[in-house]
């Protein structure tokens, strides 16, 4: 099972309703994934030279104000921290690697859920309506977003094992399915310098794409290479700073439906998640072909 959704607006400026539409899509996928819910939002850009990092702390009332004070002594922060209970988004002017080193040395209890110019990732155990409300999803604007409702099969039901997984700047991935060669591939990627936070199979797929993109491949090329290197069942939805892509394995047992209008492209495990979008009734609707990369980019 699991439910995945993606919504990509074709225009460059942020759409105010993005968050509320994604919350509606996730709500429709609640039966497919009651264990946990997560989403990646591509909203405002960080100022030039800065990057955004989404951190996850233990408990729903982590002391983010205190952390902000500590961070500010080590790095310039361009704006106030944005706390969302167990998560917070910081905008920092620094080399991300130095920030990660600082976090792992000074605050090893924190998880880095995403970093990049635009991405923010929120995820937690629970059903989609509750998790969306916890993080105020309905009030968030943005250009595109991905979401996931999880029915766990490969690893534990925890916040850290929830989707989306983000292993590189502005890149994230949600997955319906299971990979069978993830342990060996994780070892290979670790030797290439890709870091993993969990034993989850989907995180390996995200790490694989990060590795391919670092090699200079385009997102489409990275996904085409994944067809040869990932073994298992998958429907993937992938987000980058300006792009959105879909890939299904060659057998294509895991469902997927795409819909496109002049204004947006949407992907979901089931059409009912798309039905709530404005203009859905008039959209072109089709099932994506197996082993075929579908991608959209803003210039």
């Amino acid at each position, binding site marked *: 099972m699991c439910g995945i959704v993606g919504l990509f607006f074709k225009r460059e400026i942020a759409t105010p309703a993005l968050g509320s539409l994604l919350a509606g899509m996730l709500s429709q996928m609640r039966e497919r994934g009651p264990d946990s819910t997560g989403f990646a939002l591509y909203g405002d850009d960080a100022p030039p030279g800065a990057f955004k990092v989404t951190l996850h702390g233990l408990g729903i009332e982590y002391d983010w104000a205190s952390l902000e004070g500590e961070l500010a002594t080590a790095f310039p922060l361009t704006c106030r921290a944005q706390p969302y209970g167990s998560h917070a988004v910081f905008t920092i002017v620094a080399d991300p690697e130095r920030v990660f080193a600082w976090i792992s040395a000074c605050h090893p209890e924190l998880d880095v859920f995403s970093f990049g110019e635009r991405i923010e990732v929120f995820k937690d155990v629970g059903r989609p309506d509750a998790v969306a409300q916890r993080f105020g999803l309905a009030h968030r604007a943005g250009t595109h977003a991905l979401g996931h409702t999880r029915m766990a099969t490969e690893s534990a039901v925890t916040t850290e094992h929830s989707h989306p997984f983000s292993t590189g700047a502005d890149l994230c991935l949600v997955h319906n399915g299971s990979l069978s060669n993830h342990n060996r591939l994780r070892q290979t990627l670790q030797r290439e310098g890709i870091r993993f936070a969990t034993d989850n199979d989907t995180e390996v797929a995200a790490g694989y794409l990060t590795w391919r993109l670092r090699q200079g491949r385009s997102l489409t090329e990275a996904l085409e290479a994944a067809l040869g290197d990932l073994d298992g069942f998958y429907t993937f939805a992938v987000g980058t700073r300006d792009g959105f892509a879909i890939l299904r394995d060659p057998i*294509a047992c895991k469902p997927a439906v795409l819909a496109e209008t002049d204004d947006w492209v949407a992907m979901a495990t*089931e*059409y009912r998640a798309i039905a709530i979008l404005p203009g859905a009734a008039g959209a072109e609707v*089709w099932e994506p072909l197996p082993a075929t990369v579908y991608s959209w980019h803003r210039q």
Partner: protein
Amino acid sequence: MIEVDLAQSSVRELNQRLHRIGPGDNEHHWQVVNPNGAHAIAVGLTAPVHIEIRGHVGYYCAGMNAVATVVVDGHVGTGLAENIMSGLVRVRGNAAQSAAASGRGGLVVIEGDASARCGISMKGVTIVVGGSVGHMSAFMGQSGALVVCRDAGHDLGDSIYEADIFVGGKVASLGADCVEKEMTPADLDRVAALLGCAQIAADPERFRHYGSARRLYNFRIDHAAEY
């Protein structure tokens, strides 16, 4: 005509109303609006009703259909008309995977494309697809006919028993034990008749005929690699 708005009533209420139609009832023409991708709409019908569904539907629409006519003016999800027994199911858009799976009779018309495994394990149903079909279509087909006006994906008719497949365009590859067969004048007439029944415009002369080589009926060690 009776109109049911699925924004107001549940699929279960709709299906129960349809199941209660008995001999002598006069409720023959129904329209369903706002399906919004709901699953299992118009499943298990046994009365000669005509149902038009306005919009995209979810999984298993018109499953186990007998006698009834179900028309979907939109896209259908996985498992359209699964195990159809008789009657007509028509889709004006595209169909997701496993359309008409295990169908025993009746006619399923998909005016757009059908995805993978269209007609998997078909047992007598007739399927006419105006566009193309995905991989593994007519897998283990036992009887009936699959007519595809455009192209067929990989492994067409894999492990087929006795169903007939007619394709108007290209076949990416044939599955195990599926071979091209002679297109006889009787086959040509049959394709023309099926296209006519389906109200799909296509030239029967373009179609090629595929079916079982019958080498997998009994296990033979010479064919172990084929299984």
